[in-house]
């Protein structure tokens, strides 16, 4: 008998828990579609932030249009009560509709029937009223719930994993100082072609390379890594999130930002080495990198 089996056989509370009628969740990560309910989560600096959301339309590049939902019987004049196909009763705050980063979607919980998503859209447009009264004051406790949801969406909408450009880039500093790629290559001990890619922002410097570059070009150097937009859009797809999180745990101290930068950098570098004509299959390239690790 396993430890769990032994505990179930002797613990009445555990027996009661297991006998309850638990909902069946989808718990998958397909390509997001209108009417799906997802858990979205990301990091606000070092604090995890999560929210359940309804996908209102198929994503466009890195973005997905969502309405946040809670399971409380709380709302405002733009909130409507909904039920998913697997019985989750939720309140959809249509007034807080927002575009968030697609990569924050974690797993699908369930789906809404088409008439339900249509109702949500009608409330959103103001064609039918929400099911609660207006929140007219900060002293209305519902104001706290709405503010909390708004803050969570703000994180999901603004916390990109790509490093932001702030300050002079390698390219700007190298051009201003008249330092050619060959000199950068010598300083870093890399091939001239690799140095050109680094200078042009086609790959990120490693930490040791960055230290050398700062010595060469100045301490306020910023990264200017900007992968192909289609690569970004594909890498941000929820289908890769589970594998990226596993790789992050194994190799990058659980840091999902770092693992995404690593995969994007590796895929970009490989793409530059293979100069075949035609559009690139970024998803296959991403899968190959994840499989190698």
């Amino acid at each position, binding site marked *: 008998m396993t430890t*769990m089996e032994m505990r179930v056989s002797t613990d009445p509370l555990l027996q009661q828990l297991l006998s309850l009628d638990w909902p069946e969740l989808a718990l998958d990560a397909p390509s997001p579609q209108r009417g799906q309910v997802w858990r979205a989560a990301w990091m606000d600096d070092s604090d995890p932030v999560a929210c359940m959301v309804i996908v209102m339309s198929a994503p466009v590049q890195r973005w997905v249009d969502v309405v946040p939902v*809670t399971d409380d019987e709380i709302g405002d004049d733009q909130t409507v009560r909904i039920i998913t196909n697997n019985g989750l009763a939720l309140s959809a705050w249509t007034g807080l509709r927002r575009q968030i980063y697609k990569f924050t979607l974690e797993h699908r919980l369930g789906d809404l029937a088409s008439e339900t998503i249509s109702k949500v859209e009608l409330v959103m447009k103001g064609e039918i009223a929400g099911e609660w*009264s207006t929140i007219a004051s900060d002293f209305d406790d519902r104001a*706290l719930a709405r503010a909390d949801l708004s803050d969570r969406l703000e994180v999901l909408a603004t916390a990109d994993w790509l490093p932001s450009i702030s300050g002079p880039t390698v390219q700007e500093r190298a051009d201003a100082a008249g330092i050619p790629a060959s000199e950068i290559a010598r300083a870093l001990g890399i091939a001239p072609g690799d140095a050109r890619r680094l200078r042009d922002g086609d790959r990120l410097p490693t930490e040791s390379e960055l230290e050398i570059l700062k010595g060469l070009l100045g301490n306020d150097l910023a990264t200017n890594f900007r992968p192909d937009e289609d690569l970004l859009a594909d890498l941000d797809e929820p289908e890769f999130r589970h594998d990226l*999180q596993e790789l992050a745990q194994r190799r990058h101290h659980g840091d*999902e930002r770092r693992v995404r930068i690593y995969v994007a950098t590796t895929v970009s570098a490989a793409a530059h080495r293979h100069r075949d004509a035609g559009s690139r299959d970024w998803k296959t390239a991403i899968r190959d990198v994840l499989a190698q690790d």
Partner: protein
Amino acid sequence: MGVIDGVRAAVANGEIDERLVDALRSAGRQVTATRPPPAGASSWSPGDIDDVVSQTLSRVKPATFVTKANGASTDGEFFNWIVKAVRSTLNLQAEDTPVGRVLRDVKNALAEDDRFHRSGGRWTLAGTENIIWDGDKSHLVAVADTVDTRIIRRAPDANKIQIAWREDTRAVCTAVLAESGPLDELVLAEVVAIKFNAMFDSRFGYLGLSDLDEKYQTALGEAEPGTADVEELSAAASIFVELTEDERDFLSRYLAGAGLRELGEHLSSNKDAAKTVRVRIEDKLRRLAARAGDDDGAATELLLEMIRRSTQVSYSYDDHGDASVN
């Protein structure tokens, strides 16, 4: 035991196992720490705590556990909700529930108006006797919400909490009963409670006088009316029961030595929740000073001490946050 690592992700992913049971028991121990044990017992036994947990499992739908887990950011946030759920179970047992108090308020408000009749546990509005309710409570809540009412402060004594002005209660009951016809008094009380935010006690983590440290509960019971000390004590207790979990958390940071600068940064954050909490705390501290005639900040210090000594501490992300978004 405290927060159970990994419980949020487990429940969110449909993995129902001993982690959730352990979290429920841990919450039970925390909540019962300040409550009198069952009659005849000198303390809460593991069996007594299991009974409370078992009743919580009977009362809260499994789907609610799952959606709460999926909506929470961390184990700590999910555990805080479990604590509130167990606390609500104890409140129900003590008949100190928002619905219980609202039942009395509705009875008092409607008894003054001849249009309302109560018979066989049901309320009826004159002229609506032939309407038959279809059982949809959420629709009645929506009807209740269409009635404009005034926000009311929580009364100093939580045991005599005034949910709403009687005139407003009658207005809401008129609208609801006109829609439903004769209605069970408990259903009417639940609808009124939702309308007047009374059901939000558990959602927003309000505490009652029974959650005060025993020292203050005793002092409140023994205080001589009319003295300066009792005015300060009553005023501080009245504001204590008006604080939400977020507001107590904010004030706890101050107690933990956050310092005025850090608090100022926290307050001046653009985050909507921080701004809303700031407005609400400023209002409550202002009313505390007015109630206590507090020129020297003594009542505020007393309130902060009550929070510090309260055992119903919420877990911050800093204490028990997950290392990743899992």
